[in-house]
């Protein structure tokens, strides 16, 4: 499913359909996250990937254009880049522990410490929250700062020439270049 959606995005020219498909992709991956026990992540991915970012892409399309023009460039160079990267990825996976294996380093080294110590030290049921906000709370501060950066970035870029819109239906023909 995921692969099909991704390939459909490669082939499609209608940007509107692409926006929708990328939402679909996010929802599907959210489902996948649930099956892999990452409920928090699934929740976020659904809200962000299928919600906010789809809305943003649609908003951008409204301000730009709906269709992709066919490109004349040859796909050989990108294909080469992708294949080399893919080969490196596959090479890396060869020595990876099996999926779901309980004795992988990830499961034996630091991970269980969180589960054990969180009970005593933080004492809240959701371990993801306790790591997110306390053990690795500093990353989350960084994350908030990233959101803040994006916010002021967008304001710097496109809020300067704000047009006061009185009524939605009055300014449909106001599409002159700014």
């Amino acid at each position, binding site marked *: 499913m995921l692969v099909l959606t991704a390939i459909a995005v490669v082939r499609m020219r209608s940007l509107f359909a692409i926006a929708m498909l990328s939402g679909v992709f996010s929802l599907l991956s959210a489902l996948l996250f649930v099956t892999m026990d990452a409920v928090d992540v699934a929740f976020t991915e659904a809200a962000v990937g299928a919600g906010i970012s789809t809305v943003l892409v649609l908003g951008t399309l409204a301000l730009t254009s709906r269709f992709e023009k066919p490109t004349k460039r040859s796909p050989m160079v990108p294909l080469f880049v992708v294949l080399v990267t893919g080969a490196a990825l596959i090479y890396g996976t060869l020595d990876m522990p099996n999926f779901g294996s309980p004795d992988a380093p990830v499961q034996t080294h630091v*991970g269980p410490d969180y589960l054990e110590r969180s009970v005593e030290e933080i004492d809240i049921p959701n371990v993801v929250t306790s790591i997110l906000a306390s053990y690795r709370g500093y990353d989350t501060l960084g994350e908030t700062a990233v959101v803040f950066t994006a916010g002021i970035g967008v304001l710097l870029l496109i809020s300067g020439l704000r047009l006061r819109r009185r009524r939605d239906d009055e300014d449909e023909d106001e599409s002159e270049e700014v």
Partner: protein
Amino acid sequence: MGFELTQEYILGHMNYWLFSVLMMTGLYIVVAKGNLVKKIVGLNIFQTSVFMVYISMGKITGGTAPIFPQDMEIDPEVVYSNPLPHVLILTAIVVGIATTSLGLALIVRIQEEFNTIEEDDILKIERAIVQAENAIHGDAMGGRA
């Protein structure tokens, strides 16, 4: 360094190979496609596939989501999956949406200035600007004369 291609090995790695394919599809969209919006969508697919790798490494067979019962009475029999990758990916998703929104904002500005969001057209316009500049300032190669 050897590894055996047992059935168990193949099944245990199938997910990583699948995610690699997804990643490469996303990367291909970013590199090969000329439409700027499509590039951003490709970037999203690329990143989401990376997130899947992270989440899948935290999964334990038979494990469950790392949330204890409300009364904190923990049953030692229950296996919980590793919560750390979840936390990392939560952060990464947020970073991803931040990048996406900035990229889209840039696209809006590019549309306003260049009146197109196709890379080929933008290159054409920029080449014209460079030629105009060279006409005034001497071109890159013969500028010394």
